[in-house]
């Protein structure tokens, strides 16, 4: 007999997964939470929240994500990656917080899964050749072995002759956990395939499928007939089980969380493009804006959070950042929008002209330097042009939670508005402002940002001058610095790299010189410190390092004024020191 953990087993029936329900199941001693997402994907997950071990089957399924009942952690459809930790609404959860998933395939009205199943779920030719009809499953307090033994003596009547009692029975063995029984009467015969799901060493579920679907008018009678007959079998099996000593329960091992997660989430370690994606679709979503739908060529795509971006490594060697526009749970692809920049240095040009459907690109894992709080009473999104892309992900995350928000979308003209298909689902929450002059834009921003109240948050992404205007207007309207979040396309300030100073790495007790013309980031990398980075111009926030001591010469556009004033973090790709020495917490 093969190891049951290497086999596919049924864990539920398809009708056990109605919309927004979470099915509570068990296989080989391991509990699973099984749920269907709105895109029809069936998730089979370890029934245990990674945070504090609470059963996910008592949580909620909103069709895209599963939310844990205890502290509200949200996990994405498909990837099971954690997308939100409400206790720290300003943080982006570590991408690697990912629940354990098991494969799932629906076949014969049953959901198949397994610990570590080899190959494909069983193909049963007699079901494939027929019109399978799934019967009601029955739980049994007996081992699979006892149940299978009872099934070999099981009797039922063929469809058409349910009232009789003398059908001839024939058994066909179908492997370790299944068999087929054919009941033959004078004029009729029926075949049922019985799969026995090993729940634990002393419990099973019988899941049965008839090879042929009875006429509509007969179905209920057939179902009742089998329910009655199987009910009798259950009683026999349970009696047989009580005559035997209770077996040791099966033990399902729980994976340890990674070392990094067992302490505080560690900073990522290098700039890399580990993912390979294929352009599944490329279309012009607006004038001069191309949309790309990227699908994985290998493992499922990692989880992303609203506001996250990916680095796209282009065929011409350039690296560019693009925000992911997808809503929660929409995890089968990443969709990005690329604006053709007039003074393009080759990035957007390459994507528009040389990258086509079917091409493979190298991208980084999603990284979130623009995290979305979901504890605001009102959230104002202000997008200028292509700056709408992160907002699309964010608004789609807030909408199903019923949190109040408004999206103000500034663009030159109607034909410049991108991603109609997403915006149309947001209805009245979107206000479009077209063709405004800088003065009119400021007037409009003043209107939009008036009336700051407690627990309001604003997110602003667009061209530099608009962001600067919004920054001033928000401050004048009484918005505290911490409530206004910016994402810059780029850093247009002139970088002054003339200073020279020394940096001390507190954790490794090393002191390094930063000469003029060289960045801290480069010095760190030269000395073997693996450092993440993305835009390398002080806009995205990826290369941040905590500062313990010293005066910082901030030249980035990522940090807020209060964060600059606090003086405890630095963007190593552009910022420098005004003191002779900086002590970094790395």
């Amino acid at each position, binding site marked *: 007999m093969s190891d049951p953990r290497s086999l596919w087993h049924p864990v539920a029936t398809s009708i056990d997964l109605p919309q927004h329900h979470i099915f509570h199941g068990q296989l080989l001693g391991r*509990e699973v939470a099984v749920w269907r997402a709105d895109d029809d994907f069936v998730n089979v997950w370890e*029934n*245990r929240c*990674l*945070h*504090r*071990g*609470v*059963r996910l089957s*008592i949580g909620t399924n909103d069709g895209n994500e599963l939310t844990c*009942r*205890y*502290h*509200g952690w949200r996990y994405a459809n498909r990837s099971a990656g954690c997308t939100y*930790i*409400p*206790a*720290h*609404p*300003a943080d982006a959860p570590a991408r690697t*917080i990912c629940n354990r998933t098991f494969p799932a395939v629906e076949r014969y009205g049953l959901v198949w899964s397994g610990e570590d199943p080899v190959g494909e779920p069983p193909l049963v030719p007699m079901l494939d050749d027929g019109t399978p009809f799934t019967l009601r499953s029955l739980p049994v307090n007996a081992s699979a072995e006892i149940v299978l033994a009872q099934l070999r003596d099981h009797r039922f009547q063929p469809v058409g002759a349910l009232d009789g009692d003398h059908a001839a029975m024939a058994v066909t063995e179908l492997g370790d956990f299944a068999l087929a029984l054919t009941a033959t009467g004078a004029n009729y015969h029926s075949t049922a395939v019985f799969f026995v799901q090993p729940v634990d060493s002393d419990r099973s579920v019988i899941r049965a499928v008839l090879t042929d679907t009875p006429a509509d008018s007969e179905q209920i009678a057939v179902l009742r007939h089998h329910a009655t007959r199987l009910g009798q079998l259950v009683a026999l099996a349970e009696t047989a089980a009580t005559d035997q000593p209770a077996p040791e329960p099966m*033990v399902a*091992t*729980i994976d*340890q*969380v*990674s*070392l990094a*997660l*067992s*302490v*505080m989430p560690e900073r990522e370690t290098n700039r890399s493009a580990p993912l390979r994606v294929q352009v599944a679709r490329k279309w012009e979503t607006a004038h001069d804006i191309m949309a790309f739908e990227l699908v994985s060529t290998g493992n499922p795509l990692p989880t992303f959070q609203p506001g996250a971006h990916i680095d796209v490594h282009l065929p011409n060697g350039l690296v560019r950042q693009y925000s992911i526009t997808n809503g929660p749970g929409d995890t089968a692809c990443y969709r990005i929008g690329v604006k053709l920049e007039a003074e393009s240095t080759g990035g957007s040009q390459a994507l528009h002209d040389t990258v086509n459907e079917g091409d493979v690109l190298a991208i980084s894992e999603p990284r979130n330097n623009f995290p979305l709080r*979901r*504890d*605001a*009473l009102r959230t104002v999104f202000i997008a200028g042009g292509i700056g709408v892309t992160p907002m699309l992900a964010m608004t789609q995350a807030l909408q199903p939670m019923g*949190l109040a928000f408004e999206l103000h979308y500034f663009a030159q003209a109607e034909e410049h508005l991108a991603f109609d298909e997403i915006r149309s689902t947001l209805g009245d929450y979107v206000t479009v402002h077209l063709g405004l002059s800088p003065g009119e834009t400021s007037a409009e921003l003043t209107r939009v940002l008036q009336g700051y109240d407690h*627990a309001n948050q604003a997110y602003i992404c667009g061209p530099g001058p608009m962001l600067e205007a919004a920054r001033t207007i928000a401050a004048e309207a009484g918005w505290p610095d911490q409530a206004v979040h910016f994402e810059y396309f780029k850093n247009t300030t002139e970088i002054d790299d003339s200073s020279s100073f020394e940096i001390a790495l507190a954790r490794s007790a090393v002191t390094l010189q930063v000469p003029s013309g060289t960045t801290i980031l480069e010095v760190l990398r030269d000395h073997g410190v693996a450092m993440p980075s993305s835009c390398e111009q002080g806009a995205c926030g990826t290369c941040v390092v905590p500062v313990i001591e010293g005066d910082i010469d901030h030249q980035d556009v990522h940090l807020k004024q209060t964060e600059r004033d606090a003086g405890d973090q630095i963007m190593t790709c552009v910022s420098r020191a005004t003191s002779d020495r900086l002590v970094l917490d790395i």
Partner: protein
Amino acid sequence: MTPTVATTCADPVILDQWHPLLPLDEMTADNVGHTILLGEQLSYQLDTDGAPVVWLAADADATALPVLVEYLYVWVCLGSPPEALFAIPEFAEPDRRNIHAGTIGVHVSAPRAIENFLDMGHFPYVHTDVLGAEPHTEVAEYDVHIDPDTNDVWATECVFYQPRAATTSTEGQMSDYLYRVPHPYCVILYKTTPLAAERMDVIALFCRPIAEDRIEAHMFLCLLDPDNSETVIRKFQQTIFGQDKPILENQYPKLLPLDPRAETPIRADKVAIAYRRWLSDLGVTYGVIPAA
């Protein structure tokens, strides 16, 4: 990680603690009562002087076990007891009301219940519209330390937004909390009261371990509230704990894992991490899965 549940206790650290058996006023001189502590059947009764006597039911000589009456409860030790129980000075303040709010059985280990009590992050989800409400979900940074004299674990500077923090509340407030763990299975919280600016209500959970994965939790209150009836105060407290119970009973494993890699902590769990480490340092093995 294969949790095995012991039937009796072989953990000297736990055997040598005082354990809260039951409220003194539930013992009588007329009848012998029976209960379970750490897997042992116990019998109890008041003697003719009204003092509690507790003995092992299996002990033919009915040798009296060490007992202590403190904070409305009878405490018992199955090993060598410490001289005194931890101090709750507020208990003796004349304007306080000391209330036993009820005892509720929970199918979980004592340390899981203690950790839940130390946790603010669940308020909006588990005590919705009472101790918390979405979207006010943030757990702000707070401090944790171990008192060098008493070896109690403390969490200080805790604040959380609460729509209805106590029976005396009429509106939402930012509540200040202090948490204190003076005993492996007992926890105390001090909380802002709308009634007095400088003083705090005291709310404690004293767990009686019936088995490694099963407790009865005594809810003890020491409040400044002069107005609400005992019935109303008890109702509030039992409602809160009644909301925690199904969460606790859905945690797996039921014993608290002390291996840092068993679960995923976040900054909000600082005090829980400190509590787990503290249990490890004390050498507690009963009710936990010790780190490998």
